[in-house]
């Protein structure tokens, strides 16, 4: 009986929930996304500090999609949440201008600039970050946060 339960748990673990949203390209919706993300993360059992990290990271990703990605005011961008027992995977996808994502620089503190902090913050707060971008096609930023102790 014990064995059996464990087995079912293992099978269920593989199945993940997919929650997705399509967001208007406007600054006032970033906060809506933050609250949605917060609700999902708290439901999953992340602790308060982890939830705060995830909220900051997703807001930075949305801000980039709005500020750099999309020019057309009527275009939306998309967010996919993949949720399972171990982690949350969040994809922020815009079909905007794209950029050379392999040329991202770390912020240089000896000559601080107004910009260039967003992606660095996301990388610091999340466990794994991957950016795929193509000029003229758009950008997908994927970030992962694991439940359990911070790594």
């Amino acid at each position, binding site marked *: 009986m014990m064995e059996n339960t464990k087995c079912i748990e293992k099978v269920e673990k593989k199945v993940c929930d997919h929650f997705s949203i399509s967001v208007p390209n406007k600054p006032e919706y970033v906060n809506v996304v933050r609250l949605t993300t917060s609700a999902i993360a708290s439901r999953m059992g992340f602790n308060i500090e982890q939830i*705060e990290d995830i909220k900051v990271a997703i807001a930075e990703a949305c*801000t980039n999609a*709005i500020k750099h990605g999309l020019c057309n005011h009527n275009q939306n961008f998309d967010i996919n949440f993949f949720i399972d027992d171990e982690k949350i995977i969040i994809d922020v996808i815009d079909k905007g201008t794209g950029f050379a994502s392999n040329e991202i620089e770390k*912020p240089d503190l000896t000559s601080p600039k107004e910009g260039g*902090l*967003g992606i660095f913050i996301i990388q610091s707060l999340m466990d794994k970050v991957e950016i795929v971008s193509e000029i003229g096609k758009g950008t997908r930023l994927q970030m992962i946060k694991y439940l359990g102790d911070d790594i």
Partner: protein
Amino acid sequence: MALYINKNYNKEEQLWMINIAGEIDIYTANQLKETLMKMLDEHNENIKINCLELDYIDSTGLGVLIGALKRLKKENKSIIIINPKKNISKLLTITGLNKIFIIEGE
């Protein structure tokens, strides 16, 4: 969702005191930028920012503060951030900005 700014110039100490409450993000950052620029147009002096009631700041907001600091640094003035909440301290540490701003009351 909203940002509240309350500013006051202390003539004796030649110091701007401002209280910021709410959230600084892509939606509200411009409001902060305009306020700070107007302040520095009046008196290009040290700014002490009380963050006791500031719940959230994003990279856009930090960018606005860096922009103001760059203007002040030219005349050897600075920005003093007091009473930041834990999440804001964390962001200042991660980005290394705690070495550029003066942080008090953490």
